[in-house]
């Protein structure tokens, strides 16, 4: 707009000055000079004068205009630089803001991860607590059972002692009186067998009630299995045959005598209970390197595949209500785990179940 105006102005000015000059310069010369020679000479000067004057005039005029333009240009340049800087700064600020956001995001992610981790930890802690609670209940149960059996065993052992002492006296009396009677022998032998059996059950109960957390007691595996069989007599129906395939040498392992009794009583009772009419329970013991292996194989009803994975779950039972708490195998499993051993089941419906207990046999 301004540029156009300037062009118009300069053109108009030039036209006006030119027109005025053409109109009035000759007249002026006519006033000043009357002779043709001077007139003609000044006519030439007049052209030069016009050119110089207009040149000077335009010089100032254009210069003024150009200065203005240049200033504007400079200002624009400054402005542009300012803008660029501004944009630069803003961009930098934005970058920083983005970086800060990214960091915040990262932190949030980390926090989220921590929360997730804590959540998982809480869950496992809860699970552990539940297991612990369950075990505490068991320990409490076993502790009161221990006190009870220890008391009973002391009270029963004294009367057993009377019978034993009386029997010894009678045996001596009969020997000295030289009475030889098959029936008397039978009676005495029956009393002796009765005392021995009652004593072995009392010993078993005593062992079972030994309540401590010691895992480094010297455990005689064969004695523990024999005791467990004696204690499980209540479930040992006459149609069940127990086959012992024990190693020819004693197997001594580190462990908790009372708790290992619990393991084998549970497994033996289960084997007995699985057999309906008639069957066998084969107990095998052997050692391999630093491991003692006991297998208890019954020819009972067996367990179906879908149930097999659940049998060590607490409170899982297939028995009639009141015939099993569903805790036996769960306790067994926990005890074996405490001993750093393993418990494995193989079963086929109507054919039987084989339980394999592997326990470390090396004393530390």
């Amino acid at each position, binding site marked *: 707009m301004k540029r156009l105006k300037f062009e118009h102005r300069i053109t108009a000015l030039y036209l006006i000055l030119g027109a005025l000059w053409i109109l009035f310069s000759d007249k002026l010369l006519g006033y000043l000079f009357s002779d043709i020679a001077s007139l003609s000479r000044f006519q030439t000067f007049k052209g030069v004068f016009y050119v110089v004057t207009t040149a000077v005039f335009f010089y100032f005029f254009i210069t003024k205009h150009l200065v203005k333009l240049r200033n504007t240009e400079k200002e624009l340049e400054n402005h542009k630089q300012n803008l660029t800087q501004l944009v630069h700064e803003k961009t930098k600020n934005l970058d920083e803001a983005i970086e800060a956001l990214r960091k915040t995001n990262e932190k949030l992610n980390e926090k989220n991860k921590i929360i997730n981790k804590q959540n998982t930890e809480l869950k496992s802690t809860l699970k552990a607590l539940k297991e612990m609670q369950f075990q505490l209940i068991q320990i409490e149960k076993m502790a009161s059972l221990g006190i009870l059996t*220890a008391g009973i*065993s*002391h*009270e029963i*052992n*004294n009367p*057993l*002692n*009377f*019978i*034993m*002492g*009386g029997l*010894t*006296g009678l045996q*001596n009396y009969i020997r000295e009186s030289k009475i030889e009677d098959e029936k008397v022998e039978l009676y005495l032998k029956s009393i002796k067998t009765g*005392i021995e059996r009652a*004593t072995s059950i009392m*010993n078993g109960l*005593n*062992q079972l009630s*030994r309540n401590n957390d010691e895992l480094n007691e010297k455990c005689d595996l064969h004695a523990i299995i024999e005791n467990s069989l004696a204690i499980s007599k209540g479930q040992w129906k006459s149609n069940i045959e127990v086959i012992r395939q024990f190693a020819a040498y004693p197997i001594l392992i580190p462990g908790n005598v009372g708790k290992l009794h619990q393991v084998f009583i549970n497994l033996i009772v289960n084997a007995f209970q699985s057999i309906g009419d008639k069957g066998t329970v084969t107990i095998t013991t052997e050692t391999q390197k630093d491991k003692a292996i006991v297998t208890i194989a019954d020819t009972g009803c067996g367990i179906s595949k879908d149930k097999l994975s659940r049998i060590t779950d607490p409170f899982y039972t297939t028995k009639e209500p009141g015939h099993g708490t569903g805790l036996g195998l769960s306790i067994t499993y926990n005890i074996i785990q405490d001993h750093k051993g393993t418990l494995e089941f193989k079963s086929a419906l109507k054919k039987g179940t084989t339980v394999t207990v592997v326990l470390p046999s090396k004393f530390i």
Partner: protein
Amino acid sequence: MGKVKILYVDDEAINLMLFQANLEKKYDILIAENPFTGLQHIAENKDIKVVVSDMKMPVMNGIEFILKARLLSSEVAYYILTGFEITEDIQEALNQGIIRRYFRKPFNIQEISREIENTITDYYEQQE
């Protein structure tokens, strides 16, 4: 050589009677129904060679009784009878040589008799 003198301490009267009845032919048996009577016997009979005591008795247990008895007579072989599993007290007494052995109830009189026999043999061998 007269019969060897043995003291048996138990709070169950029937146990005392049976022990005495079964072993009186071989040994001179003194019996005590409580540890105090037992200590009295030891004080009065310096020739007691063997003392057998029940573990669980009122007032004082078998080990406590034996520790007191040792102050009166240290030349005696002491034994404990228990209706329980071996306890820490008993294990400790065994380790320190306070008692020679412990027997589980119901006890086998023949086994105890054999053990006493060995002890007496040891004792006389040492005397010679």
